[in-house]
């Protein structure tokens, strides 16, 4: 499968979606004006991935900030992976946050409330 590798900017995140190396990661900040333009190719990639997923899928979010439009797209991404869980596949979300950023932890917990995917919370230390 094609690898998505996008370097982050001031208003868009780093994205690595690499099936072969089993790396699915979104990091940095996400506040684009047009969220669809940025995320649509990623959503299409996920649809393709879900047709023949890896044995175990780990989805990493290491976001320092995202705007509300991005938060809606993040839910769309999670809902796609939820279908994998429903199909009996192993999926886990690793939600990374800095210890002093409670808002980011809460954002993860809210997603975990909405979707049926196990969440693991990882404290970023740097």
């Amino acid at each position: 499968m094609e690898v998505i590798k996008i370097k982050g900017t001031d208003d868009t995140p780093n994205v690595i979606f690499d099936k072969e190396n089993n790396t699915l990661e979104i990091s940095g900040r996400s506040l684009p004006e047009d969220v669809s333009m940025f995320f649509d190719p990623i959503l299409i990639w996920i649809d393709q991935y879900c047709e023949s997923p890896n044995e175990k899928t780990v989805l990493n979010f290491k976001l320092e900030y995202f705007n509300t439009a991005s938060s809606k797209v993040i839910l769309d991404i999670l809902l796609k992976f939820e279908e994998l869980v429903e199909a009996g596949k192993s999926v886990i979300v690793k939600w990374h946050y800095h210890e002093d950023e409670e808002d980011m932890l809460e954002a993860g917990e809210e997603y975990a409330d909405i979707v049926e995917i196990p969440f693991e919370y990882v404290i970023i230390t740097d």
Partner: protein
Amino acid sequence: MNSEMMNNLKENQSFLDFAYQLYKTMKTNEISLVYEGEVTQEITKTFTSLTEKNLAKNAESNMVQRKVFNVMVECLQNISKHADSLSEEDEERRGIVMVSKSDDSYNIITGNIVKNDKIPYLTKSLETVNNLDKDGLSELYKKQIKEGKISDKGGAGLGLIDIAKKTGSKMTYQLKTLSEDRSFFILTSTIQRN
């Protein structure tokens, strides 16, 4: 000296007075940013990174920095998506933006033109979020993020809820009537520093 020159001098003097008054007011109220003009994504990026640098220089905690950044983005993107212009022919989405600091808080004040027919919905949304506590806001956020769709303007209908969640304080707002069908909407969001 002819009268035209006299007038020019007077105008010049009153402008200098104004500039000095503005400077004094900004100093007294620790206003770090004032802007009036079109609000675009470029402006949003510039102002948020400028404010971020200022806050870091003032050694504000990461949490406060993040909240101020967050609220600024939502306020500015609200203007760039929803602001109206003075007339139908004009398509620019303009607004004013101000960031001020006091002993215990940061205020982010934005103002923009809004059509009067949107006001009932706007004020109802503001009253709704202002009347909810933390858990209530979280529930409303989850409901809206599940049910909402990204609009053709790229909004998710979550901006005001998010501001209320992140600030933990009530937003204040004012409306000044400009004409039969338009008003000026001023929104103040407050972030506590401790």
